[in-house]
């Protein structure tokens, strides 16, 4: 089977600045792929290269088996893209812009358009200059979901949307997935990525530092525990694999590295467990851990010099 998106060794330089460094990415058919990272990490640059707007300095970028730069126009017949901040033409109405966008792809569905306008609760008769950011975002989303694409690219699509509309967006993404289509979702809202995405990449400073399914990633990380024991626990902060210990109202909350989980539970159980709550690490925990690691490495490196 041909992978839908195949990125190998992608590097992009702007002058001397290396924006992307040896990016690998594979998206399969029917997959929702999460793309997360702090501002300026290179998410939008990667997406613009996928869209053939920027030219890769080196590496291979293929969508539907075709070259993203050379065959851009051909590829885009099957792609729907929503930018993070949709700048629209101020003197056109929302309805006009949606029609224009559908026509530009060439395969829009009029009924689906009207249905989506309803679902996203958009007034299509207003001029774009009068729309709030959230409403402009809705226009881009409606145009994307009303087009019959095979691959959807969302670059922070829900910024400015209210929670209700965020849910509508998530429903639409799942519907698209159920039709066997693929999605690339770049987002800051980690709960959204967590809910929707099967595979996730974390990008930092132009490098992908982690890729995998959420459970794979979780495996590598820590579990959050809250315990209450009959006999008081001796201080155990120094035990291997224990982090962030907090004492509160007679309860102790902490994090344990997955590989040490067994030995720590054995140790605690000797003191008589009254209460034990465990929760898997959230994506936010994962993300922050990567980020904090990077910071401490950076500061250590600074000291070393």
């Amino acid at each position, binding site marked *: 089977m041909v992978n839908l998106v195949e990125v190998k060794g992608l590097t992009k330089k702007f002058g001397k600045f290396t924006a992307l460094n040896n990016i690998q990415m594979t998206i399969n058919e029917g997959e929702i792929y999460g793309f997360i990272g702090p501002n300026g990490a290179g998410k939008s640059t990667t997406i*613009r290269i996928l*869209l*053939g*707007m*920027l*030219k890769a300095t080196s590496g291979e970028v293929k969508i539907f088996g075709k070259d993203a730069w050379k065959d*851009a*126009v*051909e590829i*885009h*017949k099957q*792609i729907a*893209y929503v*930018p993070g*901040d949709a*700048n*629209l*033409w101020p*003197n*056109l*109405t929302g*309805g*006009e*812009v*949606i*029609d*224009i*966008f559908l*026509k*530009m*792809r*060439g395969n829009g569905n009029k009924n689906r358009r009207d249905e989506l306008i309803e679902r996203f609760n958009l007034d*299509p*008769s*207003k*001029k774009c*200059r*009068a729309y709030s950011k959230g409403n402009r975002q809705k226009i881009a989303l409606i145009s994307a979901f009303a087009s019959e694409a095979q691959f959807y*690219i969302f670059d922070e699509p829900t910024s400015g949307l209210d929670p209700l509309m965020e849910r509508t967006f998530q429903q639409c993404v799942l519907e698209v997935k159920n039709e066997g289509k693929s999605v690339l979702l770049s987002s800051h809202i980690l709960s959204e990525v967590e809910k929707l995405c099967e595979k996730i990449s974390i990008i930092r400073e132009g490098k992908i530092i982690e890729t995998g399914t959420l459970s794979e990633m979780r495996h590598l990380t820590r579990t959050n525990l809250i315990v209450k024991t009959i006999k008081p626990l001796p201080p155990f902060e120094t035990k291997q694999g224990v982090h962030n210990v907090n004492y509160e109202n007679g309860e102790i909350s902490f994090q344990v590295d997955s590989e040490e989980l067994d030995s720590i539970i054995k140790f605690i159980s000797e003191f008589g467990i009254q209460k034990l709550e465990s929760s898997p690490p959230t994506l936010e925990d994962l993300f922050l851990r990567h980020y904090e690691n990077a910071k401490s490495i950076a500061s250590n490196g600074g000291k070393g010099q």
Partner: protein
Amino acid sequence: MNLTLIKGTGQLVKIIIRQHRFQLIAWLIGIVGVSLAVASSYQSIYQTANDKTAFALTMQNPAMVAMLGPGYDAKEYLVTVGTQFAHEMLLFSVIAVAIMSILLVGSSTRTDEETGRIEVIRSLPVGRLSYLAACIIVVGFVNLIITLLIGVGLRLLNIEGITFESSILYGAILGTGGFIFGSITAFFAQLSDTSRGTKGLAFGALIIAYLIRAVGDVGNEQLALISPLGWSVRTDVFIENYWWPINISILLSGVVLIFALYLNSIRDIDSGFLPKRKGKTSASPYIMTTFGLIYLIQRTKIVAWSIGIFALGAAFGAVLGDMEKYFADNEFVQMMLSQVGDFSITEQFLTMLMGIMSLISAIPVIMTILKLKSEEIHNRTEHFYSRSISRNQVLGSYTLLAIVESIIYLMVLALGLWLAALTMMDDPISFGTVVQSALIYLPALWVMIGITVLIFGFVPKITSVIWLYYAFCYVVAYVGGMLKFPDWMKNVSVFEVIPKLPGEEINVIVLVLVLAISIVLLFIGFFGYKKRDIVG
């Protein structure tokens, strides 16, 4: 009036002035500076009684009256140069002050409301009418300053026949003219709920006032008196110095302002009294094409420039007729005329005009290509390029639009010039001649398009270089001969290379060469655009 309604007005006056201070200073310097500079230069322009009579003759032809107002009796131009100055400058100075007032009031009412600034202010212990009241005070104050600066300044120039009363009256015509349009804008700001709508209505009112006055001045004086501009030009300033138009302006401004304040006091914030026009909920087929969309985005600009170029053409056309009359009595010019041979002074004048007007027409044509750069900066080209639209299609549409525009502008230029000349000249110039002398510049405009596309295609950051080249062409056209530029240098300007019609012969080789250059430039530009990164 209930004083709580205007609580805090004084503070707001300071805020509004501070917000607009640079803009207001620029307007003040511009209006006062130009008025005084022109007034002082008039002393040396028309020296003899003969010149002055000729001037009076020119000013009394209907096209001039329609453009500048009714003016004075012929012998009054002999009394003081103030009359010449007033006839040529007064109406357009009033319009300039009116534009300043419309912009000031429009942005310190609706713009501030649209952006939420008034909301913040109103949440403070400030009266409901304070912001509008403060805005009115500011526009009144600015117009008062204009009145005083021009009034005192004109007197200080010590021009014969300009008394202190008449110079203050001249200033007051400007000041009250500005104030009345400021007041009308304040009123419209209550009707429309957007700043664009408000300014649109106000400029519409200004244009209608100008047209009513023009029609009235030529035909029916009663009609002219309906328009504020109509009574502004009827003070007989520097001769009789009637003050009644000033009083009417102040009175009318007061009435309009009372209405505006009343409407402001009863309306909700962010709302207007005009019903909101619902926009279209779906797009018409023509804007769903790339070219149609690109045209729509620039339609307002194209229409505005077409009207402007038509009007300029008409203005020159009207003068063209007078050239003949004026020079018919002038022996010196008669002598010169006979030396040039087959071509009349009018026709030579025509070639000069076309040279300048084609340069002016190049501005909106270049702007059309540069619009694509601004669309890219504003992340709007990504809507094309994330869909099945190629770069050739987009740049091609912009280029095609620029080419179509170049034809439109030169055609309306020729049309305006010819129509005006037709009504003015005893022996009108043929339409064919005018069109030919205009359209001959098309290849030059296309080279300008080509250079712009070339720069934009490779290094969009430096597209302003095209304006440097443009400025060079302008300098060559205006003073190249006077400054004795060498021929090779003049020929760097593509406008200089074009054969001047009527007068010179059509040099087909040169035209084909220029055309070929423009095509090559376009070709390379398209190639570069296809290869480069798109910012957004």
